[in-house]
């Protein structure tokens, strides 16, 4: 470097001397001094260029040029802040939204579990699900514990089969008591997953033996860190779990947060501790309770299909060995037909994945389109700029800049934009993904996703940014390469000579408008779909209802008195002045399901069954169509009575008068066969959710006649007072009676809204993206129309000089807009039905090809487009004919 500087020092002096000497020579040959000087300069050529070329001999030119380009680019971008801000924001929004969505998809979908050989991890399930047989703690992938014992002892196709299930536990005592996410695990789990403890040891098959008591608890890394401040001497200490002190035997590594995506565990205890932790808990022996997940690794060389086939044959014996008792032969036929099969589980279990993956991919598609529009926009802006900068380019070419240098200059500028946009986009992505998660997080579902930035997301963003920058960086570069510098110099500004770029820009704008229309149609559809959903009448009044869940198993109440205790609690709540009405129910709206086989006058079928206290219908404001409500004379010993829904009447009784008819229920464990007399008919209510098309047959029976009361109750409370005040009053009342009662509150309306999160998310995001796309497309349209107006200034000047009115001019410009817009809308209208076809399953109450939506979106887009072109149209009318003509 030093040598280079020494060599180059005095180069300009040297060149000046050179020219002077040449001048002197010319004078000696008899030229006049002036003539001599010009001849010498002419002969020498472009001084600056010579200097540059000479310097270039010495340097890592590309590096210096790049630096210079960057500096120049920055200066250029600073000089036109409007352009820069629009471009950078456009990119940042596009890249940010894409990254956030990709991030979420990655976290929910793409990542494999951090365990040994996740590809061979499979879960064992009943083929085709259990068809609602027995009692289900979750979806149909669950098995009973006795079935797991059979699998553990008899299966041969898997190595290290294990069972687990997540469960809510309370840890701590008194005021420190808090609810945590726990795991029941079989002794094989940790060894089979091949993870090593951070501290201490994991639970083993030695620990997990029937009647083991409480051999130990394993903490998650996060729980150890947040609750124990990463205490080094944690192993050997005690943790109070559900009021039982258990020895902490180990801590899981940070990377292992459980097998369920979005639900990180806090503590893990062995299944065998179940009876010790809850004296009444007989889950381990229940043959009708489906609650455990069974997984294992495929033995090497065994395919999924092979393992499934083997398991299907073997499972016959396992099923026969675990037939539950207390069911009718009919119901048991379903059970006998169960067979086990294997499904890949390397990505972990995820309810999130099931409920959101379609929506997330859809959103990624949407954001992809937005990014496409954003890129088109940038390209458009750059094109307009490069044509406005045509003169600058021409001057620089004439001054000896090479085409290549100009092209790299343009590319540098776009890379600068893309880089800034991407950096800002990354920041936005963080904000977006946190917002997204808070949007899909509900009170009941503490969502925890690993959103630390990983290389795949980074790669994705960089790929997007670089592709984008190259896409829009090259277009203007080509543009300036194609132009003859002399032409550009002569015209002194943007010229009609660039007809072709003009056409390219039109294509860009038309495609932008087309894509925007597709996105707008999508946005309209999802917003309307969400609107439809919120307007659905569930058959009961959602607002003003508070649900209080109360558990009193710590009070030492004996099972015979569970029912009395629940009734006393209800009476206490009813005595609160704020409470207008209150009732208990074994089933809460849109929460779980209880189905019973019934026989009504020979017609057999299934009906939902809920046991409710008098006042339930009044509290939810479900109208009674006929007969009477329950009252205090309906007791445990009085004849069994039922209120049925209209659907029930329709299904089982047709046109017969339902009052006085008799329902016979099929027996189930804890629920012996019973006979109910119908005393009333209630209006239908939606049972499983707002999207339910036809309400199922439903029957209500008095809570006093509930055959299987537990140490808990759920009270629905109606009040017109603020529900926070009501919950405070209820808590006071209940805990003053006994501090041993656990109480939790849920606002009914909120819980129903939480169930519409997917729809709300889609409506909100597709709405905002549709809006964003619209703005971007309008910026693009505005840019192009302004550009066209500038190009046609002379023509407009002539027209005005020849007597065209302002109105004529406006008509011309708006005509241009309209033709572009119509073309875009036409293309978009063709594409929209194709694009929205896949969204049918996510929509409610509206078809993806809804013509009204298409028309509305088109009209909306068209009118916004008109507005966007009003400013350039007005500017066109301000053209002074004289100036415009002179300019030419």
């Amino acid at each position, binding site marked *: 470097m030093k040598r280079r500087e020494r060599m180059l020092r005095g180069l300009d002096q040297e060149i000046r001397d050179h020219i002077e000497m040449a001048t002197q020579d010319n004078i000696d040959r008899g030229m006049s001094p002036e003539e001599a000087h010009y001849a010498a300069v002419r002969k*020498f050529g472009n001084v600056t260029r010579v200097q540059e070329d000479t310097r270039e001999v010495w340097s890592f030119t590309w590096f210096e040029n790049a630096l210079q380009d960057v500096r120049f680019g920055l200066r250029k971008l600073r000089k036109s802040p409007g352009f820069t801000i629009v471009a950078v924001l456009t990119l940042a929004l596009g890249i940010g939204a894409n990254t956030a969505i990709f991030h979420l998809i990655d976290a929910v979908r793409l990542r494999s579990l951090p365990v040994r050989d996740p590809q061979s991890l499979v879960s064992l399930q009943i083929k085709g699900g259990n068809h609602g047989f027995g009692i289900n703690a979750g979806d149909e992938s669950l098995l009973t514990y006795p079935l797991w014992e059979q699998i553990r002892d008899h299966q041969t196709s898997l190595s290290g089969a294990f069972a687990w299930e997540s469960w809510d536990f309370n840890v701590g005592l008194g005021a420190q008591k808090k609810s945590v996410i726990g795991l029941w695990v079989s002794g094989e789990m940790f060894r089979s997953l091949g993870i090593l403890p951070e501290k201490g040891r994991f639970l083993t098959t030695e620990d997990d033996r029937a009647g083991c008591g409480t051999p130990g608890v394993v903490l998650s890394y996060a729980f150890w860190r947040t609750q124990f401040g990463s205490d080094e001497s944690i192993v050997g200490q005690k943790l109070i779990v559900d009021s039982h002190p258990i020895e902490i035997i180990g801590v899981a590594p940070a990377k292992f947060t459980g097998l369920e995506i979005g639900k990180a565990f806090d503590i893990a205890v062995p299944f065998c501790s179940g009876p010790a932790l809850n004296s009444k808990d007989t889950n381990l022996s229940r043959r009708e309770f489906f609650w455990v997940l069974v997984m294992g690794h495929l033995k090497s060389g065994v395919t999924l299909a092979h393992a499934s086939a083997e398991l299907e044959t073997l499972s016959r014996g396992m099923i026969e060995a675990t037939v539950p008792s207390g069911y009718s032969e009919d119901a048991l036929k379903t059970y006998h037909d169960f067979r086990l099969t294997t499904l890949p589980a390397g990505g972990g279990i995820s309810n999130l994945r099931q409920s959101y993956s379609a929506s997330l991919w859809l959103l990624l598609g949407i954001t992809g389109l937005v990014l496409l529009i954003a890129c088109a926009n940038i390209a458009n802006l750059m094109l307009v700029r490069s044509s406005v900068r045509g003169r600058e380019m021409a001057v620089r070419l004439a001054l000896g800049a090479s085409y290549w240098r100009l092209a790299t200059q343009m590319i540098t500028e776009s890379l600068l934009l893309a880089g800034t946009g991407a950096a800002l986009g990354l920041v936005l992505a963080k904000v977006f993904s946190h917002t997204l998660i808070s949007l899909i997080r509900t009170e009941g579902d503490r969502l925890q996703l690993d959103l630390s930035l990983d290389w795949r997301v980074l790669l994705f963003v960089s790929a997007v940014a670089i592709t984008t920058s190259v896409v829009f960086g090259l277009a203007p570069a080509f543009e300036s390469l194609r132009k003859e510098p002399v032409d550009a110099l002569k015209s002194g500004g943007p010229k009609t000579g660039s007809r072709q770029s003009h056409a390219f820009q039109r294509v860009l704008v038309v495609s932008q408008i087309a894509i925007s229309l597709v996105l707008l149609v999508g946005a309209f559809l999802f917003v309307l779909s969400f609107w439809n959903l919120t307007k659905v009448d569930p058959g009961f009044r959602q607002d003003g209802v508070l649900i209080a869940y109360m558990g009193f198993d710590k009070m030492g109440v004996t099972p015979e008195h569970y029912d009395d205790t629940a009734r006393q609690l209800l009476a206490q709540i009813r005595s609160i002045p704020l409470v207008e009405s209150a009732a208990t129910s074994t089933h809460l709206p849109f929460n779980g399901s209880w189905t019973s086989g019934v026989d009504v006058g020979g017609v057999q079928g299934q009906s939902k069954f809920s046991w409710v206290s008098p006042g339930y219908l009044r509290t939810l404001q479900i109208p009674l169509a006929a007969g009477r409500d329950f009252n205090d004379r309906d007791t445990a010993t009085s004849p069994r009575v039922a209120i049925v829904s209209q659907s029930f009447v329709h299904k089982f009784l047709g046109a017969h008068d339902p009052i006085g008819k008799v329902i016979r229920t099929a027996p189930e464990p804890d629920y012996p066969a019973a006979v109910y007399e119908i005393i009333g008919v209630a209006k239908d209510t939606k049972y499983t959710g707002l999207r339910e098309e036809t309400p199922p047959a439903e029957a209500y029976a008095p809570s006093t006649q509930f055959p299987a009361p537990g140490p808990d109750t759920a009270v629905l409370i109606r009040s017109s007072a603020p529900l926070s005040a009501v919950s405070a009053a209820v808590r006071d009342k209940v805990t003053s009676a006994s501090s041993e009662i656990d109480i939790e509150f849920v606002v009914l309306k909120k819980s129903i809204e939480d169930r519409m999160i997917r729809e709300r998310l889609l409506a909100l995001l597709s709405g905002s993206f549709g809006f964003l796309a619209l703005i971007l497309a309008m910026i693009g349209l505005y840019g192009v129309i302004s550009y066209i107006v500038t190009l046609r200034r002379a023509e407009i000047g002539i027209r005005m000089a020849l007597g065209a009115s302002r109105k004529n001019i406006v008509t011309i410009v708006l005509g241009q807009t309209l033709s572009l817009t119509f073309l875009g809308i036409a293309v978009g209208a063709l594409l929209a039905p194709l694009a929205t076809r896949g969204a049918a399953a996510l929509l409610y109450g509206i078809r993806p090809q809804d013509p009204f939506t298409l028309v509305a979106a088109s009209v909306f887009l068209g009118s916004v487009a008109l507005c966007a072109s009003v400013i350039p149209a007005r500017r066109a009318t301000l053209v002074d004919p004289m100036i415009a003509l002179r300019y030419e």
Partner: protein
Amino acid sequence: MSTKEEKNRIELLQGTLDLLILRTLLLGPAHGHAIAKAIEFRSDDVLQVEQGSLYPALHRLLKRRWISVEEGTSENNRRAKFYQLTTLGRTQLALETSKWDKLTAAIGRILRPTEEGPS
């Protein structure tokens, strides 16, 4: 400079300028203008040094250490940079000259095959 004169002039081939500079400097150190002038003079003004390429060429040679540069005083008593051949440059010149001879001979044989034959 009339048009007629210009017609007789030949633009230098790519790379030959380096060779000519080296050859010129074989006569002794010279500054830029002198080198250009010498080339034109010694070719009877047939070869025109594209002066824009002179300085990049000089620096190319400097970078390869075929020539070196020194401050000196020019004929009209002005300070100027004088370029001179290094040992490495001399070797290179010999090499390049023989290459050039081979090249011109070969091209000559192709262009005028008859002159070589006896008839």
